């Protein structure tokens, strides 16, 4: 719990005034943590220039389907930048709505159409992130896995590579790597 509280504080530290955070903060919720994770991915992954609409285009974190984050995600990215680009959160109802987007969180509500979505995003240079069970080996590049009250990463390096993204080895260290040849869950 201490770690959770620490994580919450870390999250709050980046979005709230330190005084407020230290005053009395409830333990950060699962999605508050995941929102921070989404932001952190922008730091550990390199996107090809083609992934952006233009040199001045913002770095877009998109949420496809139902939005589980509420305001958390917006708070996590407020005022932040990635590779010199301002961070923007966009929410997409449907796949068709997905435009230029560097990180796309695919909510479990769209889980049934995951393969379709991944296929649709192919060659767009979008890092896909899911957090629902059974998403592994279905094309999503990073999975956020709840493991003994912690959130762990599962990364499909091949998928990311196929999308032209370079994931930092540092990110790979604490993550589970999805092997194409081995079954995973």
């Amino acid at each position, binding site marked *: 719990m201490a*770690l959770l509280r*620490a*994580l919450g*504080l*870390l999250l709050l*530290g*980046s979005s709230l005034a330190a005084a407020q955070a230290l005053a009395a903060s409830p333990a950060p919720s699962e999605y508050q*943590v995941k929102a921070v*994770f989404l932001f*952190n991915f922008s*730091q*550990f992954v390199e996107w090809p220039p083609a992934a952006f609409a233009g040199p001045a285009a913002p770095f877009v974190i998109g949420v496809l389907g139902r939005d589980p984050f509420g305001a958390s995600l917006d708070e996590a990215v407020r005022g932040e930048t990635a590779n010199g680009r301002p961070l923007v959160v966009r929410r997409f109802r449907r796949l068709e709505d997905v435009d230029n987007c560097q990180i796309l969180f695919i909510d479990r509500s769209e889980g049934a159409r995951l393969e379709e979505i991944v296929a649709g995003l192919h060659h767009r240079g979008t890092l896909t992130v899911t957090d629902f069970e059974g998403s592994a080996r279905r094309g999503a590049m990073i999975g956020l896995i709840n493991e003994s009250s*912690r*959130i*762990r*990463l599962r990364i499909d390096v091949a998928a990311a590579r196929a999308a032209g993204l370079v994931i*930092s080895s*540092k*990110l790979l*260290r*604490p*993550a589970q790597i999805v092997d194409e040849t081995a079954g995973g869950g």
Partner: protein
Amino acid sequence: MSARVTSIRGKLMTMNLLTSGVVLLITTAAFFAYDVFTFRQAIVRQLNTLGEAIAANSTAALAFDNPEDARVVLSAFKADPHIVAAALYDNSGKLFAAYPASLPAGALPARSESAGYRFGHTELLGFVPVTEGHRKLGVLLVKSDLGAIYERLRLYAVIAAFVIAVSALVAYLLSHRLQQQLSRPILRLAETARAVSDRQDYTVRAASADAHELDVLTGAFNHMLTQIQQSEGRLFAQLARLSLLQHITRAIGDRQDLGSICQVVLRSLEENLPIDFGCVCLHDAATQSLAVNTVGPASHALADELGLAVQSTVPIDQNGLARCLGGQLVYEPDVREMQAPFPQRIAKGGLRSLLIAPLIVENNVFGMLVAARRQAQAFSSPDCEFLKHLSEHVALAIHQTQLNGALQQAYDDLRQTQHTVMQQERLRALGQMASGIAHDINNAISPVSLYTESLLEREPNLSERARGYLGTIQRAIEDVASTVARMREFYRQREPQLTLARINFNQTIEQVLGLTKPRWCDLPQQRGIDVELRTELAANLPDVMGAEGEIRDALTNLIFNAVDAMPEGGTLTVRTVVEDRQQTPQVCIEVADTGVGMDEETRRRCLEPFFTTKGERGTGLGLAMVYGMIQRHSAELEIDSETGKGTTMRLIFPAHTEAFVSTLRLPAPQLVTRRLRILLVDDDPMLIKSLQDTLEADGHVITATNGGQAGIDAFKSVHKGGSAFSIVVTDLGMPQVDGRKVAAAIKGIAPRTPIILLTGWGQRLLAEGDAPPHVDRVLSKPPRLHELRAALAELTA
């Protein structure tokens, strides 16, 4: 080897070892300090590199909240054994992960601190920020122990100790060899110094050293030794001279005369200084020459050769002697080069160096001390100084001797003077007393004299016996008168009025023996004592000029004394002898007894007035009168006396060989044929009566008055009556109006009236030319009838 020498060696060694040790220590310490400093920097750099690598690897773990991964990353520190602990703190400063896993709680700070490196006592703490891109994700703490540094320090300490030890050994060996170059000459110097002080041998010299400074030191040391040697020599010489000076000073302090003082000084100089010739000359200001007073005992032969024997004189030449006379010490180093006579004379005796020291007292050079040696330039400066001092001492001693002599002389003179004054004072008192007595006696015996003379003249019918008795009375009275006259004058030198007559002592002695027979014959016989008289009178005894009365008295006194000296009887010898002692023959009277004699004290004092051995019976005037007579006659008195054996008194008179010249006025009886009216003034009735009787017997008319005033009144009354006295005879000493006033008054009334003054002091008045004014003639009492008649006849002629 003494402790000090060892200490010098030890000090040199210590100095060398300390110097090299300290230099090594400082070098090593500097090296240490530099190395520790750089090593710490290296450690920090190393730790920083490591920390940054780990921090870079920890970003994901922090970013994605994965402590396990963080621990795995931290475990990479295992590779470095000195990193004892490490930890990750998240962005809020909370501990995120720690290494090693077994780390006890509290071993690490609970919160992160600001980035940087801090050295503790035993550890190095490094805080490395963990950033991804530009984002700070947390802080990495790395804790390294300083074992590496200490290990290095230990290693260095071992190396330094080894280097120092080796250096010290090398330095010891080197300095051991090198210090001998220093210590050896110093030790040699010290040994020399000890040898000098142990043996008091200042001729020892130290060998020179090869080092320049030590050579200088040795040279200075040797120079000092030379100086000490010379000073010591001078000191000993000075001490010897001082001792000699003291010796001489003490010796001359015991001497009381110039001769022996000079003798002692010269002998000491000849023996101890020494000198080859020495003499003392005294300066004679009158002749401007020097007289040799004393010659040193060993210098006599040389002195004779040089003509400087005692009593010889030396003229003062213009060179040395004159300068010396001016008070200077004169030193001639070589007299052969001198042209002046005195140095030439000295040079003839083979003497070369001459030193003349003045003998000065109160700025007056009264003599010179002459010293000479056979070698040229033989007197050193201290010698001159010594002789100068000595001459001052000698001069003082001589001066003191002279002062002593003068003092003794003055003392003797003073004693003599005092004695004389005392004697004169006694005699003066006696004389005054005698004058008074004489006056009274003369008055008293005047009638006896007058009547006796008158009887003998005017009574031809007297029997021969009566006439003989009267003659004796007259002689006795004259003796009394002359005795009385002498009584007040016996202390005087022979006076003009002493009338000398040619006297044959044999006759005088017969007379005196006749007069004194009762004392030497009758009285002793009554007491049963036998005094035998021996007279040994020389035949053909020359006459002697003298006052017979005085001589008679003197003999009488001597005979009485002789008899009194023989209370048990004995032999009285009276002897006259002619002696031929001093060309002129002398007549000697001896009165000798065989009585008790006189002791020395009595013999010495017996001539003093009022000194008597006879108690109440004696007046103490007998021998004093004898002595007075002897002096007046220019005679001599010898006293031989021995206690218990008797006394011999010897009166020695010069014999008279000249033709007879009498100064005595022989009595020539002549009667005044004229009848005179005489005023007689006196205060003594007896005298008035006797004078009146005798003068009236001569046919004169006498008016007698008692006292001066009565005399004047009588003269006035007669004068008023128209008549006058032919002559006035007045006494001198009267109460209230004395003879002088009477004479003055009468001369005032009748200047032509002659006045005769009768006086008990008559002879003195005559002698002293003290005849009062207005008096025509002074006659002494008792008046002799023939003198009175002569005066009356003469004055009224």
